[in-house]
């Protein structure tokens, strides 16, 4: 099935309570699949086509405030609209899952794939000091798997997580093993897991108020410090990445999402030519695998960062390797996807000394 369809199936099977979305290419299959599967008849999951992305993300904010497992999906221009609500969800320390199947921008841009929302997702696209746990799938299987992972991390840390997929993974069809169907949590389970949830106030507890407003500066600083401590904890514990052929690598390619697969083919081709390139694929873009890149930068001669954007993740790679080795960027823009040969050409262009032929 398509990556977008896998997202929908996986969410139902996770036992999600609600989806709120608005159509936008190239991710409309998420909402379409959910409407077709009618989970409200089976698991009781709510599916609602909202009037806008702004409304959809605020529905997610409301649902998350009730302790429910709720999510939304969109593509780049729509995710820009959602930034208001994402900031509120982060500030409210609410668990929620956001999916961005990226297309090329800026502006209305193109409906073709892109990875140009890296900054937006990893640096906090809305206002205020906050972070999103950012998962970058590179296969349809990961599209399905990261729904559960994204929800689990969101609930573990009470913070929103985002699946930052590109249009390629969204539209690509692959075999996928879906997780088994889990029941939705009961009201009792929600009350136990989320004692802060807004559910209607029983006489046995004080009222629960989900607010992100605090006018007293000293109190607002405490709230911010608490967020930052949580982000530090996430950075310490939740870094995920994959490496290929890095053990004996003389050069390193860093790429995320679908382009990492193209890079994997490129480094295999390079190996056949006797050029030892390794690949590091960050799975969490935030927290970023900076320690592993730091470590690898001490044994390679140079790093090429390949992204379908004008150079965004490269900034984090550079920060991670402390100027130890040259770091170059290669990318295509506007919805263009480089093939393995273009990646290799770019590599040899930047590192001509590596060319042994």
């Amino acid at each position, binding site marked *: 099935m398509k990556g977008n369809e896998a997202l929908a199936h996986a969410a139902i099977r996770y036992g999600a309570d609600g989806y709120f979305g608005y159509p936008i290419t190239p991710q409309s299959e998420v909402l379409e699949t959910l409407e077709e599967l009618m989970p409200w008849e089976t698991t009781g999951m709510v599916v609602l086509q909202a*009037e806008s992305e702004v409304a959809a993300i605020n529905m997610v904010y*409301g*649902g998350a*405030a009730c302790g429910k497992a709720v999510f939304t999906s969109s593509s780049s221009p729509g995710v820009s609209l959602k930034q208001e609500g994402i900031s509120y969800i982060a500030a409210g320390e609410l668990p929620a899952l956001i999916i961005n199947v990226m297309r090329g921008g800026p502006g209305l841009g193109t409906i073709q794939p892109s990875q140009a929302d890296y900054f937006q997702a990893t640096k906090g696209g809305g206002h205020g000091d906050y972070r999103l746990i950012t998962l970058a799938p590179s296969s349809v299987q990961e599209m399905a798997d990261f729904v559960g992972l994204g929800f689990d991390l969101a609930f573990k840390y009470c913070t929103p997580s985002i699946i930052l997929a590109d249009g390629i993974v969204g539209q690509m069809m692959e075999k996928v093993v879906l997780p088994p169907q889990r029941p939705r949590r009961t009201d009792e389970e929600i009350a136990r897991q989320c004692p802060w949830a807004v559910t209607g106030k029983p006489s046995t507890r004080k009222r629960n108020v989900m607010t*992100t407003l605090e006018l007293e500066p000293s109190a607002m600083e405490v709230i911010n410090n608490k967020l930052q401590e949580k982000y530090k904890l996430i950075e310490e514990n939740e870094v995920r990445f994959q490496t290929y052929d890095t053990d004996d690598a003389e050069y390193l390619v860093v790429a995320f999402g679908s382009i990492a697969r193209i890079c994997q083919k490129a480094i295999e081709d390079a190996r056949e030519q006797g050029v030892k390139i390794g690949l590091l694929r960050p799975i969490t873009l935030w927290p970023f695998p900076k320690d592993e890149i730091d470590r690898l930068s001490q044994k390679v001669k140079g790093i090429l960062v390949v992204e379908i954007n004008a150079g965004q993740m490269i900034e984090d790679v550079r920060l991670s390797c402390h100027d130890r080795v040259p770091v170059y960027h290669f990318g295509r823009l506007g919805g263009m996807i480089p093939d393995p040969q273009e990646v290799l050409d770019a590599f040899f262009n930047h590192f001509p000394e590596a060319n042994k032929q």
Partner: protein
Amino acid sequence: MDKNDIIKEENRVYKRPKLLTDNIMHYCPGCSHGVVHKLVAEVVEELGLEEKTIGIAPVGCAVFAYNYIDIDWIEAAHGRAPAIASAVKRLMPDRMVFTYQGDGDLAAIGTCESIHAANRGENIVIIFINNGIYGMTGGQMAPTTLEGMKTSTTPYGRRVDLNGYPLKISPLFAQLDGTCYVTRQSVHTPANTRKTKAALKQAFQNAMNGLGTSVVEVVSTCNSGWKMTPAQANKWMVENMLVQYPLGDLKNTVKK
């Protein structure tokens, strides 16, 4: 009879609703918000919905509504309360969900969310406080500001050629198939306050009975923003606001 002989539980005809917290409201003296808060608390109590009611607070003067009524609350982003209420009600259909919004929140930045929630016929109550001005941010023009009315952003009075017309949004709600009850009330006299309470009660019952969206507009005063005493503001409201926003039911599809 001596005063102290009269002040006895059995003789009490009016008491502060239990659901109102002890917090002193931050509203200016004479502000209509306080009266409407009190009525909401009374209605929730009288319908026995204390444990089921979830309020969605706006951005605006009523942003701190959650400090005053002892129920669960969600504080919304500006204008988004009806979207939040839609999700909460759908995820927990047996709860009583209401939004409490001012004219800027509901009729300017949140027009999209409020109209669409009502058009979907969400089983929620929208309480709309219309005082024709942005109180919290310091008295700027609202969509409902009357023609000629002075605000801090229309210092020479609202001009329709520059600022458009006062927005009558309740008639818009009334024409939507999703609404079952749209009414415009006020709280400037004891009689009007009683009527507003009855309207709120019907609206809450409609929501619990799954009849669709109910909208209760309360034409209100902002005496600070209008730069009048509370009593003068009431008079001005009757002479000006109620001409543009006449009181009464705009729609009631529910047989009593």
